[in-house]
């Protein structure tokens, strides 16, 4: 049934329909509404049997999820930003142990300077941890991806992170269909663990592995991700069959037929990019966009195929590797290394900076005229930077940059976009 509800609420209800047996989390914006809603369902008894564990930190949240999962319980948690960094050791452990935990990552920037708003720095920080990372474009997709995430995680014994843009999706009300309990039950069989801590049949999990086998254990994790690469499109197709809508998959191309310039991006910004693509198409530019839903495993073949006709690739990223440039761009470059096309990186939307359709239109127009630099920072205010650089040149004790800039700008967060 179509309802107008908040993204966080939709995810919470969907997660509940996946019947997690243990939910543990520590609140952090913008993840909070999800966890509050799941907690309320456990307390009210509408999500039962399920234990909601109030933990004292994100490190504890992931540690409890690991313990619960190893004991054979379907386990779920959610976090954002610094919360993810605080649990990062346990994040790697969950993947290394092959425990099928599902976690929502409500994407948020990482401090300092402290910033509660959206970008993808947190997801990129755990890119290499061994978790599957799926990015939602809409709240419908965010909800649907959780159903697919539990199935994928448990089939392959690999943890899955569903990434949804903080505030932009988590706090947005829009019309969507929460997957119904009976449909989820039909799609998602009960969890059958490959390994389980059982006092009647004791095993050790998490043994020390030396040089004699560590590489092999890691390689097996890589193979599981390659298996995921094959399973993700199949699960998306099965999901579409069962639920009557498209969600998930590896990549999602839009108007890429005959496109000379193709934008590549992750997450909710794809919606605004599609609007910009339509405008530039009307103006005669042959442009399209490819969304990458599965960032890890990275679908090299699907990306190469989706970009095969392009002369120019423009990767729009909400994160970057300081001192180098794009993160997603590097992966896209590897996927298209033998293609005859240029690749440009555009860093955009850091710390919640609005990515406007107008800026994207100008970007696409510039790309079509081959006027984009290798690395562009969208809507960067050069005046702010020059002023601070001048201060730093003028005096040794120039003070903290972020605070200097805030003084230059006046009221915090009084801008609309």
């Amino acid at each position, binding site marked *: 049934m179509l309802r*107008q509800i*908040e993204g966080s609420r939709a995810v919470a209800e969907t997660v509940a329909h996946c019947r997690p047996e243990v939910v543990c989390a520590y609140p952090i*914006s913008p993840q909070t509404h999800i966890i509050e809603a799941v907690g309320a369902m456990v307390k009210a008894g509408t999500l039962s049997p399920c234990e909601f564990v109030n933990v004292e930190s994100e490190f504890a949240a992931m540690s409890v999820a690991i313990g619960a999962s190893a004991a054979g319980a379907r386990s779920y948690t959610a976090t954002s930003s610094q919360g993810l960094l605080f649990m990062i050791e346990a994040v790697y452990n969950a993947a290394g142990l092959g425990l099928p935990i599902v976690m929502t990552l409500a994407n948020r920037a990482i401090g300092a300077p402290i910033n*509660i708003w959206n970008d993808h720095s947190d997801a990129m920080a755990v890119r290499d941890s061994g978790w599957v990372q799926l990015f939602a474009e809409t709240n419908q997709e965010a909800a649907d991806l959780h159903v697919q995430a539990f199935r994928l995680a448990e089939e392959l014994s690999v943890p899955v992170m569903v990434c949804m*843009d903080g*505030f*932009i999706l988590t*706090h*947005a*009300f*829009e*019309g969507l269909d929460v997957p119904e309990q009976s449909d989820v039950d039909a799609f998602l069989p009960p969890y059958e663990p490959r390994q389980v801590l059982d006092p009647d049949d004791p095993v050790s999990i998490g043994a020390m592995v030396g040089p004699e086998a560590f590489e092999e254990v890691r390689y097996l994790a890589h193979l599981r991700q390659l298996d995921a690469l094959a399973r993700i499109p199949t699960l998306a197709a099965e999901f579409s069959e069962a639920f009557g809508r498209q969600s998930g998959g590896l990549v999602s191309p839009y108007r890429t037929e005959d496109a000379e310039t193709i934008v590549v991006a992750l997450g*909710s*910004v794809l*919606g*605004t990019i*599609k*609007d910009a693509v339509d405008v530039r198409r009307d103006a005669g530019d042959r442009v399209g966009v490819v969304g990458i839903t599965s960032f890890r495993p990275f679908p090299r073949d699907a990306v190469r195929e989706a970009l095969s006709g392009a002369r120019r690739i423009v990767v729009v990223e909400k994160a970057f590797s300081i001192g180098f440039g794009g993160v997603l761009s590097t992966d896209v470059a590897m996927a298209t290394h033998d293609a005859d096309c240029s690749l440009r990186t555009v860093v955009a939307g850091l710390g*919640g900076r*609005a*990515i*406007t*359709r*107008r800026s994207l239109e100008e970007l696409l127009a510039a790309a079509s005229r081959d006027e984009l630099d290798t690395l562009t920072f969208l809507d960067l205010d050069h005046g702010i930077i020059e002023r601070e650089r001048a201060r730093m040149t003028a005096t040794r004790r120039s003070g903290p940059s972020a605070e200097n800039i805030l003084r230059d700008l006046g*009221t*915090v*967060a*009084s*801008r*609309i*976009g």
Partner: protein
Amino acid sequence: MFQVRIHGRGGQGVVTAAEILSVAAFSEGRHAQAFPSFGSERMGAPVVSFCRMDDRPIRTREPVMEADAIIVQDVTLIHQVDLFAGLLPEGYVLVNTSRSFDELGLGDLFGQFHRDHLVTCPASELALEQLGRPLPNAALLGAFAALTREITLDAIDTAVRDRFAGALGERNVAAATAAYRFVTLAEEQVRAATD
């Protein structure tokens, strides 16, 4: 597409207002999207929320830069935030105040926008009468319905009842109705004066 921007301060229900408006539009079979832009998460800080309504699916995620309507919940923001940035020439302005635009120092708006697209409404006072608390959300949405005719009062009432159960919902509906009447009357007076 009709795009609304709501300005207020943390704790006044700015975000809730946009959400309720989106539910109202949805109840009329339209596509709607509401989302906030928190300045910082604390009481009293400037907060902006957005609501889009359209007959087609809404894909964009940008803030409402070019607004068809701007609702100001808190007049003390006038000299702090560029409230009317990007308001389209045919756009509407609704300000929660018992004072007039001239008294607020906003008389310039009359030269830029249609006279009958601009209205002030004492939504907090109307809410105080109906709810016993100066929470202007429902009243402002009733006033918005009267000013723009983009949504019916019935749809606002449905969404308000959806959000606030029981007696609280009914009192908010009463506040919305009172504000709807207030603005309808004010608009009639404007038209009578300009005819």
